């Protein structure tokens, strides 16, 4: 491939590559008339999800079997099997989508492949048993799943649609057009204006206006500047950024180049977790292809602008998501944050002005440039524009990635898109913002979410983790879980967080063990507030949030642990007791397995637990086949 020398050439290529994806697009009628198109004989496209979730369920094997079986049947040149990024509907993975029929199969296994080929591809008969069953009316849906209906996919626009390892497909879908336009038609200031007007705010957690950040970095005078893409995504239970990089890496590269042009940088880094091998691989391929096409490297698209991207790997430290820590990590140091100011925009990587932006922030840039600031600004709420991707997980039916306009309510996300709680248990809380966020109670389910509203109820947007919890979750224990995380991940630099979070965790442990006092509760709250006020970086400043929000909304649970020595969710093992009910038929299984030998009873007679000796291991409960053992 020779390098693309102009925007014009890029547009020609776009037309040429169009047929590659044409049958996957909704407006299939638009026949491309350009004669310079690449030959495309495939009549059917089979899209197989190659996201991490589905790959974990062997979607790669499905693809291999597909290809083998197609070849056997002589269909290999008519049916094209494409590995895409995550479709978002991970709960039901592995996902397969057939075009142009637009049929969505779920939970496919390699054993289903032959049937799909023979029935669907050859005979045109949809394989009903692999369709999604809509839970309320038990209707089998081929397409138009409720999971997708309320979503608006901007950042995820290409995920599950294109082959991330084929730059041609990205180009066919307007890829690099925004960069081309920026380089040929716009001044950096115009782009800053556009981004500012669009209202785009950083999706990495802070919500800082992206246009302003670029402007500040542009204004800092220096011989060299840098663009850094923050792909650290350490929030446990969140996988938005990784999915974007796995499913649509070029959108991030394109945006980084745009940002580089705007601030005056010729070098960009993607700081990515080493635990993300698939995203790394796809990025590497994408960078290589982009260089070959002249979309990265020297004189991009024939302009005077040069920009290249290098990958830097994290090594398992959550705090490295914090921008100053991230910068130190790139510099080969311990990932400890430093005080701001100075901000990276003035004094960043190697002391040079640096703009650190999140993956999802970048993914929004090309559409904003192509469709205009107004288009974007029309989506969302007054202060939070556009959409937000959430990693919906926990006790919810449809775990997955969802992208919704800002202002959508939690209820819509959890119940309409997420299909409600698992096993219809009582919804208790939604946790947003990961270890920095808070636990939102049921009575705020109808709050339209945006940066401000979440903050006003003691949580935060964070990077987009959204964990659903039900009646079986103990909120004290949840707070303790998050504190354990922060204690583990604190960089250890400042007193407030190094010692403070440890003390918070100790008090929580005391409470969950039934040893807490009201005075402890008071100390917990006091210390939490002071840590927020005094910590050096965002990690410590937000670490108390899970405690403060649960104290605010679930104080009764704390009090029950302290005063009644009860854990109503029956999670805190010191506070539960095991008992054997009349359902016991005296099979002796529990007694034989109890590590403490504290269950007595003769065969065929009801057994009894000696709770003084019981260590609450739960073995009896797990063993009893007659549901006779209960926790109380």
């Amino acid at each position, binding site marked *: 491939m020779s390098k693309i020398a102009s925007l014009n050439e890029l547009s020609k290529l776009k037309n040429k590559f169009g047929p590659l994806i044409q049958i996957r697009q909704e407006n299939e009628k638009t026949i491309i008339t350009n004669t310079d198109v690449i030959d495309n004989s495939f009549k059917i496209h089979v899209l197989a999800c190659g996201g991490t979730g589905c790959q974990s369920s062997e979607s790669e094997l499905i693809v291999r079997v597909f290809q083998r079986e197609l070849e056997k049947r002589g269909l290999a040149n008519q049916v094209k099997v494409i590995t895409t990024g995550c479709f978002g509907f991970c709960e039901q993975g592995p996902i397969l989508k057939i075009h142009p029929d637009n049929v969505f199969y779920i939970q496919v296994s390699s054993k289903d492949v032959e049937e799909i080929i023979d029935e669907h591809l050859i005979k045109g008969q949809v394989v009903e048993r692999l369709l999604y069953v809509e839970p309320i009316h038990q209707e089998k849906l081929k397409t138009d799943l409720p999971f997708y209906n309320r979503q608006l996919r901007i950042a995820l626009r290409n995920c599950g649609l294109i082959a991330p390892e084929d730059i041609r497909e990205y180009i066919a879908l307007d890829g690099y057009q925004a960069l081309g336009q920026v380089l040929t038609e716009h001044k950096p200031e115009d782009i800053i204006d556009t981004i500012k007007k669009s209202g785009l705010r950083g999706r990495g957690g802070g919500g800082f206006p992206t246009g302003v950040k670029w402007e500040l970095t542009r204004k800092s005078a220096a011989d060299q500047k840098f663009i850094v893409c923050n792909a650290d995504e350490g929030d446990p239970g969140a996988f938005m950024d990784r999915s974007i990089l796995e499913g649509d890496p070029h959108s991030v590269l394109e945006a980084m180049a745009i940002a580089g042009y705007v601030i005056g940088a010729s070098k960009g880094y993607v700081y990515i977790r080493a635990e993300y091998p698939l995203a790394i691989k796809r990025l590497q391929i994408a960078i290589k292809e982009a260089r070959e096409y002249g979309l990265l490297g020297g004189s991009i698209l024939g302009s005077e602008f040069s920009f290249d991207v290098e990958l830097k790997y994290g090594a398992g*430290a959550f705090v490295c998501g914090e921008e100053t820590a991230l910068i130190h990590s790139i510099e080969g140091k*311990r990932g*400890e944050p*430093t*005080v701001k*100011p100075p901000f990276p925009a003035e004094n960043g990587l190697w002391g040079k002005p640096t703009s650190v932006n999140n993956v999802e922030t970048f993914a929004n840039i090309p559409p904003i440039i192509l469709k205009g600031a107004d288009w974007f600004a029309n989506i969302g709420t007054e202060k939070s524009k556009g959409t937000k991707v959430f990693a919906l997980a926990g006790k919810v039916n449809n775990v997955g990635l969802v992208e919704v306009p800002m202002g959508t309510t939690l209820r819509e996300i959890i119940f309409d898109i997420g299909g409600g709680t698992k096993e219809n248990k009582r919804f208790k809380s939604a946790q947003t913002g990961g270890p920095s966020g808070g636990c939102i109670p049921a009575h705020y389910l109808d709050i339209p979410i945006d940066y401000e509203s979440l903050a006003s109820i003691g949580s935060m947007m964070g990077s987009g983790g959204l964990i659903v919890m039900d009646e079986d979750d103990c909120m004290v224990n949840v707070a303790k879980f998050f504190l354990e995380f922060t*204690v*583990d*991940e*604190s*960089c*250890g*630099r*400042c*007193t*407030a967080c*190094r*010692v*403070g*979070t*440890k*003390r918070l965790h*100790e008090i929580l442990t005391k409470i969950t063990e039934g040893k807490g006092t009201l005075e402890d509760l008071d*100390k917990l709250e*006091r*210390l939490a507030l*002071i840590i*927020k*006020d*005094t*910590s*050096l970086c965002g990690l410590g*400043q937000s670490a108390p949030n899970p405690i403060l929000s649960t104290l605010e909304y679930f104080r009764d649970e704390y009090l029950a642990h302290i005063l009644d020595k009860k854990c109503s969710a029956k999670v805190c093992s010191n506070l539960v007791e095991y008992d054997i009910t009349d359902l016991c038929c005296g099979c002796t299984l529990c007694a034989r397995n109890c590590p403490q030998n504290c269950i007595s009873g003769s065969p065929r007679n009801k057994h009894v637990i000696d709770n003084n000796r019981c260590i609450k291991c739960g073995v009896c409960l797990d063993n009893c086949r007659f549901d006779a053992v209960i926790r109380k």
Partner: protein
Amino acid sequence: MTINLTINDMSVTVPEGTTILDAARSVNISIPTLCYLNLHEMKLNNKISSCRVCMVEVEGRRNLAPSCSTPVFEGMVVKTETHRAIEARRTMLELLLSDHPKSCLTCAKNLDCELQKLAAELGIREISFEGEESSYQKDASSFSIVRDPNKCIMCRRCETMCSDVQTVGVYSASGRGFQTVVKPAFDRPLIKTSCTFCGQCLAVCPTGALTEVDHVGKVWRELNNPKKTVIVQTAPAVRVALGELFGADPGTLVTGKMVSALRRLGFDMVFDTDFAADLTIMEEASEFAHRLEHGGRLPILTSCCPGWVKFFEHQFPDLLDIPSSCKSPHEMFGVVAKTFLANKMGLDPKNMVVVSIMPCVAKKYEAARPELGQKPEMPDVDIVITTRELGRMIHEAGIDFNSLPEEDFDRPLGESSGASVIFGTTGGVIEAALRTAYEWLTGETLEKVDFESLRGMEGVKEAVIPINGHNLRIAVAHGLGNARKILESIRAGECQYDAIEIMACPGGCIGGGGQPYHHGNLEILTARAAGLYKEDRSKHIRKSHENPEVLALYDEFLGEPYSEMAHKLLHTSYTARKRL
């Protein structure tokens, strides 16, 4: 550009870039600090903002601001004494103390500890947040430094000092979260690292986490051993600092009182290391002249600082032939005492104990170097204690230091020139050497003995001295980071100097690791240096080669400077060491 702001309702105008802390101090508002340390002259600015005890309220800011590292801005409104700020500070201190052994009574830093002082000032009476306490092994492996990480508050001053100023890089923060602690690689005992034992880390440690190895007990034991003749010598820099421990202003000369205190402590003879400094000059100047005349390797580097010696052994093992082979003055003194003096006084050197009072902790380690003794079981110097330890002995003995009479050193190793006195400050050794070398090489009398360009706190100083139509190029470096720069230029073949003085400690020995703590006030060092220069001026002999006792020593015992005998006793060799 200046910035106007308000602190506690007072208007303050300060230059742009000033921190809230400095702005507050400029109007006499004090804010407590622990981790912060700005030693401007040493190029050490520990602004890591880790302790969080300096928090203040800034209007419009969501959280409290660390005053030590937050720059002021126009129109800023700061409140330093609000309930919120004070509560936060107290809590930070309580948190620190919750993971701290509260063993002040037996701590080497008792009454000289910044943490303790702050706890007293803030009136901490109880610690609300108790919990797990860290427990680390104490490292007492070396002869110089005790590390007790349990008392570490993670201010990282030592790390900054050792890495940025000294460029030795012994310490790094290690681990993460509650387990984070500052330590050498792989938790090695200091003895197994490249530590130079300069003691600069402990000079800045605010707590008892880094302290000198205490040899006071050993000294008492020897003093009380009737079989032993205990001889003491005092380094130049001690006499301008010891007084500080008894309330005197920094730089006050207390030589006479010090001598009389030492006699009262029971030392059999009290001598002056200055004498040996003159001796060192004789040898070093001869070696320099010898190298000049015989086309030996130049530049020549001074070798009287053991911290510096260990530094180049680890870091520049390929350049061991460059430093002078002279032993340091107190080692020269030790060997002279156990040979010449022993002979003269009819003492068995085996029954002599040589104690050095030094501003230095590296000399504790140096005294134990096996090659610095006539036999392994007979080191040149037996025990080294620091200025601080001497202060403790005087306190312990109940001596009222300030009312002591002024006494003079014993003879014959008690006379010294002004040249030797200034050994205690950066630039002093080379200035002393020049006074002698000049006269030797030119055969003329040096009228102006003060080499002003070699004085002061500049990191690297230089001077060009015309001698015999040849321009001698002289440099002075103090602080090992500056030393490194010079050595690297030598290694690269770019060095233009003929003679270079190097001292490991910034400021030289007046800023040694064994001196009374400066607690961040470097004016103390300047005052000590001034004290030494004053003493120099007041001496009637100001050149080492005019010291009659030194000349007598050569006459009676050593022969010529740089003679075979001198070589055997007064010179040493170096060992290439690994960098760890």
